[in-house]
């Protein structure tokens, strides 16, 4: 019982850190890493709860999240590469062609 709580708190802390990173940081790679952090914090929460309730579906979900995260990492890194080629920068402040 008590052990699960620690995991949940750790998941919440990691999620908050990830969110803050996404909101505050300007470097797309760091933002990207923060997104991964958020995904994994959710994974941690789901695994912990799955363990506590003896429910497998949570763990199955985690596998899906990991698969999607892997695909997303591939696509995201490709986008960052392309953006770098065009703007010679990976900072979000330098990529703002859609500014109104």
């Amino acid at each position, binding site marked *: 019982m008590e052990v699960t709580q620690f995991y949940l708190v750790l998941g919440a802390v990691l999620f908050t850190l990830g969110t803050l990173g996404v*909101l*505050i940081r*300007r470097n797309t790679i760091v933002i990207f890493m923060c997104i991964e952090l958020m995904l994994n914090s959710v994974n941690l929460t789901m695994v912990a709860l799955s363990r506590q309730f003896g429910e497998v579906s949570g763990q199955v979900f985690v596998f899906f999240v990991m698969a999607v995260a892997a695909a997303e990492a591939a696509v995201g890194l490709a986008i960052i590469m392309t953006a770098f080629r065009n703007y010679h920068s990976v900072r979000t402040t330098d990529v*703002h062609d859609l500014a109104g």
Partner: protein
Amino acid sequence: MNILGSTLTGQVTENLLLVLIPLFPLVGAALLGVAVGIREDRRWQAGWAATLFAVCSFVVTVKLFLGIGDAQEAFRYTAWRWFESGQLSVALALRMDRLAGVMTLVVTGVGSLIHLYAIGYMHEDESRPRFFCYLNLFLFAMLLLVLGENLLVMFVGWEGVGLCSYLLIGFWYREMPNADAGQKAFVVNRIGDAGFLLGIFVLFWNLGTVSFPELQGLVGQLPPYLAETAALLLFVGAVGKSAQIPLFVWLPDAMAGPTPVSALIHAATMVTAGVYMVTRLGALYVLAPTALAVIAVVGTATALLAATIALAQNDIKKVLAYSTVSQLGYMFMALGAAAFSNGIYHVVTHAFFKACLFMAAGSVIVGCHHEQDMRHYGGLRKSMPLTFLAYLAATYAITGLPFGAGFFSKDAILWAVYSHEIVLFGTPINRVLWGVGLFTAFLTAFYMTRSLMMTFFGEYRGHEHPHESPWTMTTPILILAVPSLAFGFLFGEEFLHFLAAWGREDLNVGHAVLAENATYHLLEMISMGIAVAGVALAAFIYGLQPRLVDSLLRAAAVCRGVHRALLNKWWIDELYDALIVAPLRKVSAVLFSVLDRALIDGTVNGTALFMAANGEIVRRMHTGRVSSYAMVLFAGTIAAIIFWIVL
């Protein structure tokens, strides 16, 4: 009045050939319209192509005309049902009975000759394909007008000829007066068209049909006041198209167009559309005696007014233009006396001699290097013998000298007016109208002889060397000179007999029988004498005493005043300008600044400005920074969660 004889039960013959008549010029117009931009060295083909289409149409017309039956019969062709709305069902249908046949024959016949003439007249113009495209298009519209089976098809043709008239008057649109004249014609005609449309509405609203054969059987059901209303409204349309008082002002200005146009549209065919329309609806008009009296008065007044103006004009085309207005007035006189066939008789003879006169005048204009002022002509009979012969023949016809075409048709009209009780406001006025008509005949003889003398006799007063025109121009005028002289003599009686269904029965007895009538004989003698007097007086003044007019003008102030009034066309254009055009302009200026500029533009521009200002505010949300979007997303999520928890 056996005008009512042709009823719904009249035998109707379907005939595919009928559709070919308007189709030929339409195809021609389409082809030439595509070919406007052809190479310079191939443009001469345009005129010949257009003429070919016109002649084809004429040939088909002759073929059909020869097979035409008695007055109740008609060739009919229904292309398709045009539209249906409530009880109104309108077919795009053509119908050729005797009346339409005669008109079609004139339109395509005279039209073909004028096309041929135009080849010569326009041979230096670089936009010939455009010209002949319009000319063929006009022919199509006119044929639609004449052959239309119902009022709406006629109206399409009616508007079509108006459009072509506008296009051709302003054909040389680079010069402002020409473009203005075209616009004037269009606007003035529009006033008449409004009346015409209202007339159609009255007929449809009360009788539920616009088809001519059906209307003919149904008009009897109209209460008298409605018959009068419809007749008068339709006559307003005729007033516009056929240049009667008060809407005649556009026709003299229309002479700004090329001369073949003046001959075809503004003398022989389009301007007679009003006469044709009234005749077509004769069954309605005989039920509206007041409307007929109005028509007679308007026609007579127009005939007189235009003839007086023609006395003093120096531009040869202006003389002929006012003469046309005057002769159209004559035709309406006949209609006013319910002698519709006599009106059409004059339409036909007038088409011959007036087209001939116009084309001869055009030949003179070309021969004198585009000089239109008769004071710079003179003695041209030597340098332009063929044109002179044609002009002489046509002048003979229009002045009403014995046995010319105009003699018969004009006499028929005067007799019709004299012998028919025309009552306006309780007073019979037919004798007065007859007297005015006779006086107009005198004026006609005078001014036409004046133009003949000034142009072809005496000494040449111009500077350029005049020359005869090419055969493409002289042939049509010489051909038209023949019926101008002989038509009334050879076919007059048959013609009136042929159209007997559209005439008064008492007039339909034949010339021989009428000649035994002492009054008729006397009147004929009088009008003959009048014509001879007019011709002789003009020949005397302008042939033998060329200084007489000048010395008269110098001697008496009255003469000078009258002369100035006539020369300035009784200041009618100025009057219209002051009474109608200028106030309209002022009102428009106010409406423009208040309604258009302030209200409408203000609303439209204000809406746009409002939106732009909003956009200025909202666009700041689009920072282009991913982090700010993420912040909004995050804040939104938080807000949604709070919202969900709280509620």
